[in-house]
């Protein structure tokens, strides 16, 4: 008797969580290098009492539960900024960032220089080169970042000869779905997920990778969630009305 209420509840809880995921995607629609999340649901068969020996067998009750969120790791659109320290990655690779908690990976290529001359992310963590953090010198100017990530500068009064300052370390993962979002545009690798050097990815200087959230898709998903939720509510309401009238009719003791 109460199953319909509980089944409806399981759907409502999962829809609420799906809206949370949509809300996070929409909130990050202007976050550089952000990768959208999507929800997956699965059926959960109730293992309660049921009798299968009748001709018309009892149907097992199935609930819905959210199974997972997965990252949509497709390339976001790139915007030209003309800023020499903005890099967008064309390919599956990530930049490597050194944080106090260990190595993290990011697609947010809006780099900065800190007071020590190190190349850092907007959050202030050093971006790793092939041989550790990349440090620029006081007199460097006209930074050039080539397609393979090599960083060259003109030094001092020199206007012709490039000095190499390092090469951005680009890594990719065999199964990038196993990356965990850490916030602050960073991904961390779970145990046993090893980064591999990526030589196929290309770095584009003066561009920034925007969020890959598809606004139209998120808005229609939001409407879908909203309508589904309202439908479940209406269904539960009907069940409630049914029960209410049943109680009224059946318990109506003639005076």
């Amino acid at each position, binding site marked *: 008797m109460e199953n319909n209420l509980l089944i409806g509840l399981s759907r409502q809880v999962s829809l609420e969580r799906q809206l949370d995921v949509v809300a996070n995607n929409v909130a990050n629609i202007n976050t550089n290098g952000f990768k959208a999340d999507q929800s997956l649901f699965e059926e959960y068969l109730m293992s309660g009492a049921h009798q299968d020996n009748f001709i018309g067998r009892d149907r097992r009750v199935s609930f819905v539960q959210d*199974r997972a969120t*997965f990252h949509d790791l497709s390339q976001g659109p790139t915007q030209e900024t003309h800023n020499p320290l903005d890099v967008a990655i064309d390919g599956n690779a990530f930049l490597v960032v050194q944080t106090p908690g260990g190595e993290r990976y990011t697609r947010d290529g*809006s780099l900065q220089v800190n007071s020590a*001359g190190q190349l850092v992310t907007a959050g202030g963590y050093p971006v790793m080169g092939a041989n550790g953090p990349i440090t620029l010198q006081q*007199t460097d*100017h006209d930074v050039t970042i080539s397609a393979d990530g090599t960083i060259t500068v003109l030094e001092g009064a020199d206007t012709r000869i490039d000095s190499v300052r390092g090469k951005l370390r680009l890594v990719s993962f065999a199964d990038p779905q196993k990356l965990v979002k850490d*916030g602050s545009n960073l991904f961390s690798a779970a145990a046993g997920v090893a980064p591999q050097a990526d030589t196929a990815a290309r770095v584009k200087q003066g561009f920034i990778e925007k969020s890959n959230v598809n*606004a139209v898709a*998120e808005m229609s998903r939001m409407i879908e969630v909203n309508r589904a939720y309202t439908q479940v509510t209406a269904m539960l309401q009907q069940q409630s009305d049914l029960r209410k009238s049943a109680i009224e009719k059946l318990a109506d003791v003639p005076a």
Partner: protein
Amino acid sequence: MRALYTAATGMAAQELNVQVISNNIANMRTTGYKKQRAAFQDLIYDHVRRIGAQASDQGTILPVGIDIGGGVKTVGTPRLMGQGTLSPTGNDLDIAVRGEGMFKIQMPDGTFAYTRDGSFTTDQQGRIVNAQGNLLQPTITIPQNSSGITINTQGQVSVTLPGSTTPSILGQISLTRFMNKAGLQPIGDNLFTETPASGPPQDGIATLDGYGDIQQRNLEQANVEVVSEISDLIAAQRAYEMNAKIISAADQMLQSTANMFR
């Protein structure tokens, strides 16, 4: 319902984004202005089901997890220090830097501030000052009745004194560099001050060590590109509206729950 708060962080971020963009557009004709940009990052995630967690005692692990994000935060409004275009003005004391260096200005309290705004004038004593009357460093005094002020690419200021036919050098304008110009603190009036993030000031001479050269009778315009600002503004406004839609969707869902049983 978490979506309400998540969408609220999105609205707050886009509001700040519109503020930054409008400040850029308001300063599109400000000499030496450097545009800012709002940088966003995703907030922490709630790992409801942690990826890679043990799924059974047979050693199988979860291939995917449930991660619910909490929205967006603003991590900073870095300034993009790219070169602005130089526009000729014909004024003798309008100077622009083509390169990395900044002019050093002495504030009334004796501290120093730095600027890319090279529209200078002279005060009643003939000293070169900025629009607020603060002294350009090092102090250079232009004698009365002198003519033909010339500032060369190295910043040497020379004039022709009365009764003389050859120009005489009065002094040399020095330039200052910072390791991280984006880390300077803006104090208004086109001025910046040193911070721990910018690194210490490095004084030097124009044309040397990448300080850039000085161009007389030119002013550096703002490096704001109106087209990209307007398209960013449209994107920010739409993003704001979409976050508001999420809030109303969450509200409707809560409302239908509240009205579920009469």
